[in-house]
């Protein structure tokens, strides 16, 4: 299919003419119209909804609104490219939010992916029964919208009636879900609950692609199930693990729904600047749009750098 069209491309080398030139011209026109028809709507909206906001946020972050001391004159917008960024890097709340999400990612992502990998290996194991049921049961939380999942878990956590603490009461254990030290991990639990099954399915799909002969041969050589998992299966799903890790790191940066839902019942443990997105949103609520834009830009750059570094690090292992 591509050959007929690339023949119409002026940059393509001239081919042996099998067709009259008139037909070639018609195809060129057709390509342009087709291009516009198929790609036009997407490109137009993509530009408006993805590229324009980035440009808007970046430009906006370079300006500052200056008000006169008495507020008698109208505020003026001034170009001051470093002001908002300097403010962000001196803002303890924003830096604390960045650090909190960084800590969250470092702990939650490996934990969740370890759980997902373990589950995928267990369901893939020869001795597993009811694979379909277990696969679906762990995936079900993904079908629950993030906000709804957070609501349900907030009922699980709520201090007076927590069914979890009810169960643990006879053992003399009460988990302080909303204490300053543990509220981040209460949030991490909701995220883990929601996304483990999703990641498990991706890893499980990769496990299905391992040729049966390879596993059979390893078995013939006397390898145990654990050894096969460690030496054959886990290396085979490495690509999927890297992919899910990158998506999970990106997901951590977006942390917003769960802490926001827990905020009103957390007794102050979840501040209005708990995560970077919440911090930027509270800047919007305070009317400081330019500062919110700068925070968004910093977060986007941080995520981009992290994903890139992670890709580089994990790819280096491949070449070695």
């Amino acid at each position, binding site marked *: 299919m591509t050959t007929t069209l690339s023949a119409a491309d002026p940059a393509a080398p001239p081919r042996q003419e099998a067709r009259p030139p008139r037909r070639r011209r018609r195809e060129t026109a057709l390509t342009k119209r087709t291009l516009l028809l198929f790609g036009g709507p997407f490109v137009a909206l993509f530009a408006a909804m993805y590229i324009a906001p980035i440009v808007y946020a970046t430009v906006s972050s370079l300006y500052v609104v200056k008000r006169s001391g008495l507020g008698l004159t109208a505020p003026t917008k001034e170009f001051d490219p470093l002001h908002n960024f300097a403010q962000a890097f001196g803002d303890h709340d924003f830096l604390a939010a960045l650090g909190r999400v960084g800590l969250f990612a470092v702990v939650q992502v490996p934990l969740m992916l370890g759980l997902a990998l373990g589950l995928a290996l267990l369901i893939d194991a020869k001795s597993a029964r009811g694979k379909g049921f277990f696969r679906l049961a762990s995936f079900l939380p993904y*079908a629950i919208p993030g906000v709804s999942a957070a609501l349900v878990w907030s009922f699980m956590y709520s201090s007076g009636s927590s069914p979890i603490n009810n169960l643990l009461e006879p053992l003399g254990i009460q988990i302080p879900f909303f204490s300053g030290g543990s509220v981040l991990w209460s949030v991490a639990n909701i995220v883990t609950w929601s996304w483990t099954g999703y990641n498990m399915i991706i890893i499980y799909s990769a496990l299905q692609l391992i040729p049966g002969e390879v596993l059979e041969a390893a078995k013939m050589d006397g390898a145990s199930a654990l050894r096969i998992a460690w030496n054959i299966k886990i290396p085979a799903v490495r690509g999927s693990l890297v992919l899910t890790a990158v998506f999970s790191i990106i997901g951590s940066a977006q942390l917003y729904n769960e802490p926001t839902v827990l905020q009103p019942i957390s007794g102050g443990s979840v501040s209005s600047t708990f995560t970077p997105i919440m911090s930027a949103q509270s800047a919007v609520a305070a009317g400081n749009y330019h500062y919110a834009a700068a925070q968004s830009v910093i977060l986007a750059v941080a995520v981009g750098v992290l994903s890139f570094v992670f890709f580089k690090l994990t790819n280096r292992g491949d070449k070695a």
Partner: protein
Amino acid sequence: MSTTVTRPAAPSKARRTAKAAARRETTAASSGVVLTLLLISTAYFLFPLWWLLVSVTKPFGRQFSGSGLWFDGFGLFDNLSRLTAQSDGIFWRWMLNSVLYCGIGALGATLMSAMAGYLLAKYEFRGKGALFGAVLAAVLVPKILFTLPLYLMFSEVGLINNPLAVLLPSIVSPFGVYLARVFAAQAVPGEVIEAGRLDGAGEFRIFRTIALPMMLPALVTIFLFQFVEIWNNYLLPAMVLGDDRLQPVTVGLVGWNAAHGVAVPASLVVVGSLVSVVPLIVAFLALQRFWRAGMTAGAVK
């Protein structure tokens, strides 16, 4: 164990034989360990949902009393009628809003993704690499980061409190384009397109009558994932829709919840939470084979 397969025409029998062979090869101890671990993890995943299900059937007001893990009286219908009565039935209005935003948004996104993905897979044109690169980059940037600038842009053009502010961003799905491209490259043979051309069909007609049906499994996946993504998106509608009659159910429920059980009883939030997740669970159960195939296609490539 493949030697036991004598007739390739009976795959189910072959699979059963393979399964039996696998069972014979494993010890009772190892399957016991595997089963135990799987049951523990399943209890973790189903526990909150079970609690929700049990709570909704309890008589109104008793949602937070008792163990929470077993039924205690029956009040399901009373709970649902109280849900309907609260604030003139606004809950069902929210549900309808959610279904409309998600349905229209996902349908638009699926159609545009199909066309753009097909274009990227089956045509050569200048800027193709740049377009695909931009799509991939957009998949990798946290979507929520676009929300604040979009809110500011929409306020400048007067789109606040307008359903379009939720719909327009929803019908662009870079991940959908990516998935459609992967699938079109695999599932639509070039020869078939060529044959359509020789028969004199136009490019769009070939796409509509030949390529689109072939891409159907991927399109169902894109629709489903986009539907869930729009349903999941909380920050954007919460910011751009101040009028509570326009809000989707997630924003409405969080608003109720934030009222701390003062204006709206907490029990009602529990009932509403369960009702609001039913459509998504049904959709996932009904479309299982599609999303599984779609996730595999997206993950492996």
